[in-house]
C-alpha cells in the first residue's frame, strides 16, 4: 500500500531533486527499548527502508548454558527477558522437565500458573506504560508502574527478588505461597479491573491515541504467520493461536478463559488485545487461587530434584544427592527436545540437545523479540518517522532476550 503511494507521490513531483536521508536510530536513542539500532532510510519524513542491527546486548547465554548444569542455568534465564523473569524460568524448566519426562505435583502446576499470569500482567503493564510514553501519554506510564510495583512486591515476598526471580525449579517451585501472598494476590485481582478501566479512560477512545495507533504497523494474517510472529502480535491479525489453548500446560486447561483476537492487524488491535489479556489473566488467577489444591510444591524425585533441607540434615542419602546434584547435576537422558511456552510477548521456546550428563550439549532459545524483529522492515515501510516508536513498541521488544 505504502510503496505504491510513495511512487505516485514521486511521479507527481518530477522536477524536484530529492535525496534520501539516512538516520542511525539507536543504540543510544531514548526510545529504542534498550540497545537496538535501526538504520532508517528516509524520504522526507517517510520510511522507505529500515534495517534493525542487533547484538549490542549479546552475552552468549546459549553458549554459557553448555558449561553449567541444568539447574544452574535457571538464574541465567532471568536475564533473558529481564522484564518477565518468571516466564523465562517457566519456559526453561518446562523444557527440562519434558526432557526428563518429569511429573510435576498438582499444587506446583497451579502455583506456576498463577505466578505466570501475574508475570503476564506485569509484562503487559510494562508494555502499555512504555508504549504510551513513546506516544507521549506520560501519565499512563506512571499508573501502570504503580500497579506493577504492587506485583513486584508480591514477587519480593514470594522469592526474595523483584526482577531476577529464579523461583521456578525443575520439578516444581522453590517456595510455597504464604497466606499473606495469597491474600495480596486476591486483593490485587479484586482491584485490578478498575485500574484497567483507568488506563482505558486515558487511552482507549482518545482520538489522539486512535490516530496514532489505528492502521499503524499493519500486518496481514498470512504475513504474520509466514514471518513466524506469535503472541499478541499474531493474534492482533486475527490468527487464533495461543499455546495455552493449543497445547495446554500448567493449569490452563482447568480454568475458564478466552483468547482475545483482533481484526485489523494494526497497533491499536494489538494494544486492545493486551488490555483484554490482562482482564483474562485476572480471571485465570482468581480461578486458580480458588481451586488451589493441597499437596507438595516440589516433586519428590531424589535423582533429579534437589532434596529438601531438613532431609539433607537428617538423611545420609539426601545429603549425597545434595552433593551430587549441585556438583555434577542430574543425568539427563540423551535426545533433543523443543518446548514452547506462551510468554506475554509470544512463543518462548527452549530447544535442548542432550547427550546425557548434567549439562546440555546445545541449548537454543527461540526468543519472540528476535523473531518479531524479522518483520520490522515489512511493518515499518511507508510510515512516518514519528511512527517508528509506535512500531518498536508494538512488538514489545526486550533486547536482553533478543540478543541473548
Amino acid at each position, binding site marked *: 500500500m505504502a510503496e505504491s503511494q510513495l511512487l505516485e507521490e514521486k511521479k507527481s513531483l518530477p522536477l524536484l531533486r530529492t535525496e534520501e536521508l539516512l538516520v542511525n536510530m539507536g543504540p543510544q536513542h531514548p526510545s529504542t527499548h534498550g540497545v537496538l539500532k535501526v538504520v532508517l532510510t528516509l524520504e522526507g519524513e517517510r520510511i522507505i527502508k529500515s534495517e534493525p542491527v542487533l547484538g549490542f546486548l549479546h552475552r552468549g547465554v546459549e553458549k554459557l548454558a553448555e558449561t553449567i548444569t541444568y539447574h544452574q542455568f535457571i538464574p541465567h534465564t532471568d536475564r533473558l527477558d529481564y522484564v518477565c523473569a518468571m516466564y523465562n524460568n517457566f519456559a526453561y524448566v518446562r523444557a527440562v522437565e519434558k526432557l526428563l519426562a518429569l511429573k510435576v505435583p498438582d499444587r506446583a502446576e497451579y502455583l506456576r500458573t498463577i505466578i505466570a499470569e501475574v508475570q503476564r500482567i506485569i509484562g503487559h503493564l510494562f508494555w502499555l506504560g512504555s508504549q504510551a510514553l513513546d506516544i507521549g501519554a*506520560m501519565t499512563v506510564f506512571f499508573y501502570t508502574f504503580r500497579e506493577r510495583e504492587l506485583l513486584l512486591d508480591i514477587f519480593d515476598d514470594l522469592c526474595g527478588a523483584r526482577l531476577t526471580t529464579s523461583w521456578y525449579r525443575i520439578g516444581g517451585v522453590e517456595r510455597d505461597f504464604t497466606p499473606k501472598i495469597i491474600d495480596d494476590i486476591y486483593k490485587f485481582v479484586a482491584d485490578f479491573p478498575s485500574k484497567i478501566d483507568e488506563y482505558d479512560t*486515558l487511552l482507549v477512545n482518545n482520538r489522539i491515541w486512535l490516530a496514532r495507533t489505528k492502521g499503524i504497523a499493519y500486518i496481514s494474517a498470512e504475513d504474520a504467520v509466514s514471518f513466524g510472529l506469535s503472541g499478541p502480535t499474531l493474534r492482533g491479525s486475527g490468527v487464533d493461536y495461543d499455546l495455552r489453548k493449543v497445547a495446554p500446560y500448567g493449569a490452563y486447561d482447568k480454568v475458564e478463559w478466552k483468547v482475545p483476537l483482533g481484526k485489523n492487524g494494526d497497533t491499536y488491535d494489538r494494544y486492545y488485545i493486551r488490555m483484554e489479556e490482562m482482564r483474562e489473566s485476572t480471571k485465570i488467577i482468581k480461578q486458580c487461587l480458588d481451586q488451589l489444591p493441597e499437596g507438595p510444591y516440589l516433586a519428590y524425585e531424589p535423582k533429579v530434584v534437589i532434596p529438601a533441607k531438613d532431609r539433607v540434615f537428617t538423611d545420609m542419602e539426601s545429603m549425597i544427592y545434595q552433593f551430587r546434584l549441585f556438583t555434577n547435576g542430574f543425568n539427563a537422558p540423551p535426545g533433543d527436545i523443543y518446548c514452547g511456552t506462551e510468554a506475554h510477548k509470544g512463543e518462548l521456546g527452549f530447544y535442548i540437545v542432550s547427550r546425557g550428563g548434567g549439562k546440555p550439549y546445545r541449548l537454543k532459545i527461540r526468543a519472540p523479540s528476535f523473531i518479531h524483529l524479522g518483520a520490522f522492515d515489512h511493518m515499518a515501510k511507508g510510515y512516518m518517522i514519528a511512527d517508528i516508536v509506535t512500531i518498536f513498541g508494538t512488538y514489545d521488544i526486550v533486547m536482553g532476550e533478543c540478543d541473548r
Partner: protein
Amino acid sequence: MDLMFYIVSAVITIAVVMGVVLLHVAYITYFERKILGDMQDRMGPMEVGYHGLLQPIADGLKLFFKEDIIPSGANKIIFTAAPILVLVPALIGFAVIPFGRDSLTIGPFTFNPIITDINIGILYILAFASLGAYGVLLGGWASNSKYALLGGLRSAAQVISYELPLGLALVGPILLSESLSMVKMTEAQSGGALKWFILVQPIPFFIYVISAIAETNRLPFDLPEAESELVAGFFTEYSGMRFAFFFLAEYANMILTSCIATVVFLGGWHAPHPALEFIPPILWFLAKVYCFLFFYIWIRATLPRLRFDQLMGFCWKILLPVGLANILITSIVVYWLRS
C-alpha cells in the same frame, strides 16, 4: 528633568518586569514538575529546600556551570546566536502586557503596570513571536545533526502554520474591542465576568488555546522536541547555558501566551464580579495567568502526542476554516449591531 525621571522610571519598570517574568519562568518549571507529579501519584522534586522549592535555582546553577559544547561541524556563529534569537522575542512581548490598572507614584517617579502601551500591542507581540521560529530553525540547522535538522524543520513548519489560526482567533476580540491596544482591549471587558470575550467568542478562545499550545511546542503538539522520536528535536546538541536559553524561551512563551489569553479573552486584570474589586487587579491578572498555565500542564499530563501530518492537517483543515468562519460571523454581527 521630567524626561530623566521618565527614563529612570521606565528602566526600573523594565528591570522589575524582566526580573519577575524570569522568576516566574524558573518557578513554572517547578510547578510543572509538582503538578505532573501530583497527577501521576508521585511527589516531584522534594530534595532541594522545603518540598524542593529551591529546585529551579539548583537546576539553573547546574546548567550554568555545565561545559559549553559546540559540536564539530556546527556553524559556530549561528549555533551561538540561535538561543538568543529564541529567547529575546519570547521576552520582548512582555513589554505591552498590562499587568494591572493603577500606576504607582513614589516621589517624582511614576511606575506604570505596563512598560509601554503602544496602540498596536497585539500586532507587535505576534510579529515578534514569529521571529522565534527563526531561532529554532537556525539552531536545528546549525547543530549539524539530523535529529536537530528534522526537529528544526518541523518546528518552523508548525510555528508558521499555527500562527495563522492564532492570529485569526485574535481578530474576533479585536473587532469587538475596536482596538489593537492591550489596555483598550482589557478596558473593553470591564464590568464583571459576563463582559469577558470568552463568553462572546468561545470558539476563537478554543482555537487560541490549541494554537497557543502548538506555538509553544507543548504536549500534545511538542513534535519539534518529541523526545521519543527525535531525541530532543532542535536542541539535541545544545547543552549548558544555551540549552537553558531554549528552555527559558519555551516557558517564557508559555507565560506570554497565557498573558495574551488573559488580556484578550479573560478580562485582563478585571475581577469576575464588581463586588470582588477590593482584591488588587494585579492578583486577578496573576490568578488568571496561572489558571491558564495550569491548563497547559494538565493537558500535558493527560494527552498523547499527535503525529506531524495529523498536526498540520488539524491546523489547515479544521482550525483555519473555523477561524475564518468566526471572523465572518463576528464582523457581520458587529456591523449589524453598530448600524
